[in-house]
């Protein structure tokens, strides 16, 4: 028994430097030099890296976890939101609106899983109808989002599971559902294909400004010289800001619990309640992985690590959902999860250069709309970089086709995950991607294996064997964040 492996956080540097990197050069002794360093490998940071990779600059991204997509990006409602209800003239609304056209291109260019399901905000009383007409129709018009009134019959025709007492609702045609994991990895891998670099297990522990920009010290003591920094550290954006003594904002976690259903539910659209002054309410949405999502709660927390579900939270979701979908309480479930959105007391996004050092751009307080707004945020970030003095132009040989990254590794094709029909070849392909998973959760997010009702009890042993064969793990099977082992060597 190796006691040293007990409760350890193992940092596997072998995977820090991603393959296919064209621009890696040794500078000086071992100081890496980049034009722009993105801190944080969630969907927002990855989208920014994706955008930067289309420009003639050297960009890199650092992520403290062993994989991308380990924070808010992995636990959310997986919606592409139009922004029909966001405050007019907010930065959030602007990014969401800009993102709509950008997403269509991205989805098509990179062949992402996406379904334009449309959302219905369902009214049950005349008061609710009035709120929709007076507030939401007007807000949507000002934000340039197409909406229209649906009759009760129109709602029930597509969504027989909805409460028959509804009197109609607001139809937001362009609301869609997407795979947030695939979106994050695709952004990052396309960026890598185009010369950007992704460094995992790389936490920024110190940032020292100098004439050239910043020297960023990582947890393993290696250093990176960056002319500009984009702070896309999600919930930890305030921690990064404080590394340059910027204490201009504080981020608080807001927990959102969700229920994933197994039952077949007769609901085709995304079903939203009419918000009350106190709460946005709970939604019922189909998921691209199959099944439906119910939730979320909105609980203001102190602990940035507490992603536990609670009996009260799950009850609150069922209570909220059964008003709109009466059978909600009888649904069978595959699992429940919670994510932490990053909330800034000012309400809107923080998207600006730091007042303490303009060469650091904050992309923080992205709340719950980060996935939907990511492409717009990325464009805005590039514009800000230009405003503060970064000079670059568009690459003319930018390559969006990820199939250029296939490893060519052959495998047999028997079934591995029974619940989600994932084969051995699917897993082996995922294990050999340019940003390769080093944990079971990483395989889950790339292949959907282990996402089904047995939650991996059948296929985890086979996947661990494959990860060993493909050298994605050394020794112990890592489950997910913070490199935590699922079991110990006997």
């Amino acid at each position, binding site marked *: 028994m190796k006691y040293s492996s007990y409760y350890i956080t193992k940092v596997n540097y072998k995977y820090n430097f991603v393959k296919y990197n064209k621009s890696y050069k040794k500078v000086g002794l071992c100081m890496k030099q980049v034009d722009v360093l993105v801190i944080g490998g969630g969907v927002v940071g990855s989208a920014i890296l994706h955008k930067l990779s289309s420009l003639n600059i050297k960009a890199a991204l650092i992520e403290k976890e062993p994989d991308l997509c380990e924070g808010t990006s992995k636990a959310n409602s997986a919606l592409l939101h139009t922004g029909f209800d966001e405050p007019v003239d907010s930065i959030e609304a602007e990014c969401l609106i800009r993102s709509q056209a950008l997403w269509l291109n991205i989805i098509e260019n990179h062949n992402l899983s996406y379904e334009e399901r449309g959302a219905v905000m369902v009214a049950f009383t005349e008061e609710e109808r009035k709120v929709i007409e007076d507030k939401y129709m007007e807000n949507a018009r000002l934000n340039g989002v197409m909406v229209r009134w649906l009759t009760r019959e129109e709602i029930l025709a597509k969504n027989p599971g909805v409460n028959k007492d509804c009197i109609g609702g607001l139809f937001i045609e362009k609301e869609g559902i997407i795979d947030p994991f695939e979106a994050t990895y695709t952004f990052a891998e396309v960026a890598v294909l185009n010369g950007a670099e992704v460094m995992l297990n790389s936490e920024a522990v110190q940032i020292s400004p100098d004439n050239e920009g910043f020297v960023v010290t990582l947890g393993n003591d290696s250093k990176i010289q960056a002319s500009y920094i984009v702070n896309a550290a999600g919930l930890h954006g305030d921690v990064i800001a404080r590394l340059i003594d910027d204490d201009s904002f504080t981020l608080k976690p807001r927990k959102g619990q969700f229920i994933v259903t197994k039952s077949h539910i007769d609901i085709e659209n995304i079903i939203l309640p009419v918000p009350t002054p106190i709460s946005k309410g709970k939604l019922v949405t189909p998921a691209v992985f199959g099944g439906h999502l119910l939730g979320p709660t909105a609980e203001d927390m102190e602990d940035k690590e507490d992603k536990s579900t609670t009996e009260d939270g799950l009850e609150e979701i069922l209570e909220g959902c059964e008003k709109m979908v009466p059978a909600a309480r009888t649904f069978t479930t595959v699992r429940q*999860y919670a994510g932490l959105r990053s909330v800034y007391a000012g309400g809107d996004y923080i998207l600006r250069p730091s007042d303490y050092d303009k060469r650091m751009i904050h992309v923080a307080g992205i709340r719950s709309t980060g996935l939907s707004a990511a492409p717009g945020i990325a464009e805005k970030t590039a514009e800000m970089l230009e405003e503060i003095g970064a000079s670059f132009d568009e690459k003319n040989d930018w390559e969006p086709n990820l199939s250029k990254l296939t490893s060519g590794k052959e495998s*047999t094709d028997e079934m591995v995950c029974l619940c989600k029909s994932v084969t051995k070849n699917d897993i082996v392909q995922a294990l050999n991607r340019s940003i390769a998973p080093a944990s079971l959760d990483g395989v889950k997010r790339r292949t959907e294996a282990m996402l089904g009702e047995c939650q991996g009890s059948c296929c985890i042993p086979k996947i661990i064997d494959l990860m060993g064969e493909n050298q994605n793990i050394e020794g112990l099977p890592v489950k*997910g964040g913070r490199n935590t082992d699922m079991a110990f060597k006997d």
Partner: protein
Amino acid sequence: MVFDTVIIGAGLTGLRQALVLYADNRENVLIIDYEEKMGGFYSDNGILEKKEDRKIVAQAENLPYAFWGKSTAIDIETDENVNVLTVQTEIGSREVKASQIIITTGTLEKPRGANWIPGSRPASEMTPSLALSFIERGYIPGMRPLIIIDNDISQIVADRLKDHPDCQVTKEYAKDVEILDIEGDPRVTGVRVLGKNDGKERKVSCDSFIYSHGKMPNTAFLRMSDIGLDDLGFIRTNAYGETTLPGIYAYGDCAVQVR
């Protein structure tokens, strides 16, 4: 490829059906299984401890029937009275036609998620069969595992770890406690339980949690088919094992008898 009969699932139920077919002089039978060998999902983990069970596997292995290991049914369609089964194999998906299909795919453990147990989602929480797979591969789930004894497999896990020098096992019986929630991140630090007899809440300190409760039918591959399933996914059959489609039968744990 055309067979008289295909048996899906080479666990004990499926192998008993194969022996029945042989006694009935049926020829041209194919048996398929997700695992590489006959004996069912847990046979690799040494669960076939009963002598009579091992005997059934040995007899079935000697039958003059085709066996495809690492082969998983992914769909069944009925086309003009011929059943067409799609099987995912090592060389991709293959179509198999058969006048008779026997489904004996059994059940899977119902894990924490499907049992609505709230709390954190730590790395060291797993079902008994997964724990057993780890043990077979030379791992242990933790130094201080809490095992909820609910069935044969959880008992076997407890027995295997009982004498391990680095393992201090805590056992709780499913009949005595209700699981309230799981604590700890990234590893389990404790599980809150409610005593069913005394109505008292207490926290069991542990570094891993081995739990499942109830069974889920292993019928995900039938979701798109026309075969009648109940709300939980069990295959509806009559007393003779006939499903709602002609020529397709289901036996054992994956089936439920309805009038």
